[in-house]
Each structure stands twice: as C-alpha cells, then as structure tokens.
C-alpha cells in the first residue's frame, strides 16, 4: 500500500516520539480485529434495534434485559458461562480446519458419537474402576470417535476430492441415526422406558462443578483446549504448515509440505474436540447418552468459530458472548413476550454483519503497522 505524504494519519505518526513507535506498531497490529469486530457487533445491534422497533417493542428495554439476563448478576454470569462451555469445543471443530481452508460444519455428529462412545466406555467401568481413570478413558474414547468422524471428512476431501462441507454435514446425520440406533438398541438401559438412554453414570462418577461456581468443569477444559489450539496454530511448525496450506494448497505442495497428513491430522484434532464436548455433556450434564445430545451445539459452534475469525483465543470471548445472548433470550421471551426466534434474528444479524465487515480488513491505514514503524 502506498502512503501519500499528506495523509493525516501519517502526520500524526510522525509527530510521535521514536521510542513510542514500537508500542504503537504493536497496538496497531492487534487493534484491527478488535476494533472491526466491536464495530461489527455495534452495527449488528443497531440493525437489530430497527427490527425490534418494527415489531413495536423497545430496543432499550431489550438491551437492558440482555444485560440483566446475560451478565447482570453472578447468577447470570454463571448462566452464560454454562451455556458457553460446550460451544468452546464445538467452535474449535470448525476453527481448526478453517485455518487449512476447510469448511467443516458437521461437528454435531462428532458431539453425539463422542457422547455415545463415552457412555459405552463407562458401562463396564462405572462402579468398579477408579473415578479419574474412568473419566479419562471416557474422554479418550469420545475423542477417538469424534476424531475419526471428522477426520473422515478431511480424508475424503484430500484423497477422494469430496467436498468436506457437504460430507461433514451428511456424516452428522448418519451420526445422529447411529446414536439413536445404539441408544434405542444395544446400549439401552431397559429401565428407560419412554426416553431411551444408556445406563446412567453413578453420581460419584460425574464430572462436578468448578469450586465456588455453578458451572461444570467443561468450561475449564474448553478454555484449555482453546489455548492449546492457539499455541499449536501460532507457535508450532505444524500450525505454520497448516496455515500455509490454508493460504495456498499448491504453494504448500510445491514447498513439499505433507498437505494430506495436515488435513487428516487437523480435521481429526478438530473432531476430537467435538467428541470431547459430547463426553462432557454425558459426564457433566446428562449422566447418560440419549437423544438430548443432539442439542445443536455443533451448529452453534459454526457461528462462534466464524465470529471469532477462526482464532482459537477469540473463540473464548465470542462463546461467552453467545452464551450470554442465549441466557438472556429466555428473559426476553418472558418479560417482553417476544418469541424465541428473536434471538435467532439477533444471531443471524450479527453473523451477516461480521462476515460483511471482514471486507474492511486492510482498508484502514490507521491499522497499518508500517505506518507507525516508518521513521521520517
């Protein structure tokens, strides 16, 4: 980008003392995604206000309720965090393959199969094996199954040229059918008459709450998974290679990068996170595997990942924000008499505006680090 000498931003930059420049450069580099994302959210909320006005309700009341319901009290914060916990992992299932240029939308399938695998693993162990060992084995089983499921979509993409978006979505339907087959067949607890489920985990085998909070450990596991994923993506050669392959597959192949293995590996890792989300649903919430596992976490994860621009660290605040919107959705229904679809309209509006605002990256000179680096 060429910078005109009479650019006002440039003159501001040149007035700053040289010692400040590295700091300003650092800020400029990182401010761009934050400012654009926040601006997009504000524009989205403004558009949504128009919608609320159009149906004859007060946007001010609505935003007050959103704050009260999502973040206004310790109870509301915990409510939002509980709802965010599974989204952290299902968002990673979308974000990691996205860095390789793949659009995986079938995380739901890995969640439900992960849950079934965890419940099946627990059946022979619960009551006899130590609690910690049982939980670890449940997690391994869930991650293995979830990894294979999404890894399959990656494998088909690279080796058979099958579109991974379609295949992962179709695989998720197969997964839900398989879950129903297992839960209503082989793995069914005969005592679960009208709601077919696997045999419930004994209470002492459940993954408990975080001390001092009414939120289960899934939140901590999810945050750790996001941090680990970020480190893998940003600070390891595998992550670097994946990003190269995501930028330009041909270039990566010419460089001799193992694109096939990268795709299979990262889709499998992504799927294992979604599978882990299924295990946490079973071990921390449901106590058994049943049709409630297909609650749409896999699909909401797509939204979270896109809003976070597939940055694993950004997934954390975005998931909490969406958890908060979800938590406040109930209050909006109850107090304003608006239907549940209101929250979907808000989510959809935010999604479209944020995707639209992607086009603004690199358009504002103020965020150009070179501008601040240049000594004049």
């Amino acid at each position, binding site marked *: 980008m060429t910078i005109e000498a009479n650019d006002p931003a440039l003159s501001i930059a040149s007035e700053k003392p040289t010692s400040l420049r590295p700091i300003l450069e650092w800020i400029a580099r990182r401010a761009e995604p934050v400012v654009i994302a926040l601006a997009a959210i504000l524009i989205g909320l403004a558009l949504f206000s128009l919608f609320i006005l159009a149906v004859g309700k007060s946007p001010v009341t609505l935003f007050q309720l959103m704050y009260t319901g999502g973040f206004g009290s310790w109870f509301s914060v915990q409510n939002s965090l509980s709802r965010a916990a599974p989204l952290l992992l299902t968002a990673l299932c979308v974000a990691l393959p996205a860095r390789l240029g793949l659009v995986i939308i079938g995380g739901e399938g890995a969640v439900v199969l992960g849950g079934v695998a965890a419940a099946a693993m627990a059946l022979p162990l619960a009551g006899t094996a130590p609690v910690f060992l049982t939980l670890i084995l449940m997690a391994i089983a869930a991650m293995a199954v979830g990894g294979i499921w999404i890894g399959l979509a990656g494998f088909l993409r690279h080796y058979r040229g099958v579109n991974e978006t379609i295949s992962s979505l179709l695989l998720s339907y197969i997964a839900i059918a398989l879950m129903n087959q297992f839960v*209503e067949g082989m793995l069914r607890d005969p005592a679960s*008459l*009208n709601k077919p489920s696997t045999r419930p985990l004994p209470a002492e085998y459940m993954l408990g709450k975080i001390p001092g909070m009414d939120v289960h450990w899934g939140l901590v596991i999810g945050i750790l998974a996001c941090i680990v994923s970020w480190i893998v993506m940003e600070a390891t050669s595998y992550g670097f290679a994946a990003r190269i392959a995501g930028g330009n597959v041909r270039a990566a192949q010419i460089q001799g990068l193992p694109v096939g293995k990268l795709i299979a590996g990262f889709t499998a890792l992504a799927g294992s996170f979604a599978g882990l989300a299924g295990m946490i649903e079973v071990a921390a919430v449901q106590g058994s595997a049943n049709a409630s596992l297909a609650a749409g976490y896999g699909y909401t994860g797509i939204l979270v990942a896109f809003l976070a621009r597939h940055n694993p660290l950004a997934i954390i605040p975005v998931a909490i924000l969406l958890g908060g919107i979800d938590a406040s959705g109930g*209050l909006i229904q109850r107090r304003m008499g608006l239907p549940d679809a209101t929250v979907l309209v808000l989510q959809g509006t935010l999604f479209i505006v944020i995707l639209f605002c992607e086009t603004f990256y690199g358009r504002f000179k103020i965020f150009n680090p070179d501008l601040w680096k240049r000594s004049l």
Partner: protein
Amino acid sequence: MTKLLSMNRRNFLQASAAGALAGAMPGLIGSPAAAQTALTVGFIYVGPKDDYGYNQAHAEGAAVVKALPGVTLVEEENVPETVDVQKTMESMINLDGATLLFPTSFGYFDPHMLAMAAKYPDIQFRHCGGLWQEGKNPANTGSYFGYIFQGQYLNGIAAGHATKSKKIGFVAAKPIPQVLQNINAFLLGARTVDPGITCQVIFTGEWSLAVKEAEATNALVDQGADVITCHVDSPKVVVETAAGRGAFVCGYHANQSPLAPEKYLTGAEWAWGNVYSGFVKKAQAGEKLGNFVRGGLKDGFVKMSTLGPAVSAEGRKAFEVTQAEMMKGGFSVFKGPLKDNKGDTVVAADKSYAEDAIELESMNYLVEGVVGSTA
C-alpha cells in the same frame, strides 16, 4: 420492564392486602382471599408454543392459568433438554420469583428437573410424563399425565367408520410405551367397526422431523391408507399432507381441525388447562399439590375434538356410545385375548386392563393387525 414491575407491585399489594385482612379477621376471610394469593408460575416448552401439537397443548393450558386471579405467568419456548433448561428454571426462580414450575417436556425430568429440585427445595416442580417415584424422587417434585390412548381409541372408531380401503395409517416418532399404546388403541378402536381393518405404522425416529413426517404420510397414502393419525410433537405436517392427498385425518395433542376442516374426523387432545388450574389453585390455597397425578377422559385430562363434517351418522353414534362408556371410568381398551403382530399372546383371555393399569406402562408390542415393527 416497567409493565412487569407494576404488575409485580400490583400483585404484591393484592397479596399484602389479602394477608393483612386475613391476619386481622381470621374468622371472616377464608378460602376466597386465599385464592387471590400472588403466585408466579413458570412454563417451559421444548418446542414452539404454536406448533399445533404437544407444546401448543401445554401453552393453551398455561393460558388458562394466566387468566386466574393473582397469577403471573412466565413462559419460555424452544428450550433444549440440556443445561439450558436447568438454567431456565433457575432464571425463572431467581429473576422472576417463580415458585411453581412446569417443565413440560419428557426429557426435562432426569437429570435436569431433579437437579434443580435438590438445589431449590422450597420451589415446587411438576413434570409432564409420569416418572415420579415415591421414595426415590424429592417431595417438592411430582408428575402428571393423562391416558390419552383413550382418545386414540375413539379416533380409531371414527377412522373405522370412515375408511373404505380398510387400511389406516399411523405416523409415529419412537417405539416407546406411550406411543405404542396410542398405535394399538387406534387400531383396536377401528377394529370394533370392522375386524378386518389393518393399520400401517411408520416410525420417523425423532419427535420433530417435518420432512420425514411428510414422507411417511405420503408413503402411507401410497400404500392405500385412507385415514391417517400420528404421534409426533407437531401433527401439523401430517395433517396437512394427508388432507392434501385426500385422506381423512384424526388429530393428536391439540385441535388441528383448522388445518383440514373437511378431512378432520376428530382428535385426541390434551386438556391441560384443567390440570394446571387444579395445581395452581391448590398452590394458592396452600394445599399439597400431589406428587403423582393422572387422569383420562373422565377426569378432564384428555378431551376429543368436535366431530368433523365427514363423520357419518353411524360413526357419530358409535363414537358417542363408547365415549359415554369411557366417561364412567374403568373402560378396558386392552382386553384379552389379545395377540401381538408376531402371533404371541400379550393379554391373556381372562385379563383386561383399565386405563390406569400399571401393565400398560411398559408396553413393548404392536397388536395383531398393526403392520410394522418396534425394532
């Protein structure tokens, strides 16, 4: 917000006035004042409130409660059977001051409602589905359910008179006892008209899966069925598809006659308004709510849609005679000798089960004449 605050204040004033009066004149103020006691009641639905089905039936019941004096109603729809419903219950308790909660979906009971009941022992929880067990589940929880298969039996009588092909069809969600009761009752009702009638059943595998429900309905009509009913959360798709293909329909859960006025014979509807106002009036009067509440046609838990124009005079007569029998209570839809569709005897010749028979709760068979399989 303002509206809600003023609402609360009004209720609060009413309540405190009633309390003060009752305190001042204990002899004069009896139950009428108690019936005015402010009470916030929460209803939670798993799907949309206007689904022409399961959730609408509950929402119509909630609307009856809303009209009672002193009641503030809070409702939330589309709440999944996950941690979401736990938090919704807590939110109703903490932010709205609800003291009586009706989580209406079957899957809300274990572990979600039980977890909240343990955490909030002063709040009353009543769950639709009949899972509550004495000694095992806490005293502040309970179940209510209705013998709606009685309604499907009456549907069957109307269907038996309407069918020309002697083939009727049933679109079902899952092969669980409650659904199997309905399928079997529907065929048994039809067979009172003509023992040669058969009923084809198709299981979709999910409670709410519009595309599969439409496919199943079309498949049933293609195979010659000319009266269709269903047990899925929202019968809207089945009713509209069947009527569109020229078949008669019997409704389920709520009244679907507006969707197909010409083709709608009758329907098995929930009458939750009676059940909910019973609970709420007891709660306002400070009486025990009861932990295990059940009933059928006789008890006003279940009702029939008004018979449609397509029902013949003969059909109407048979329907009304049996309905009158059922209203007396103790009518046995399931009585021996009864075989399942594999040829095994499921009810011995000397047995008969009234609507409240415990044996019906674990039904795992399809009776002779039903074409389909539970597995």
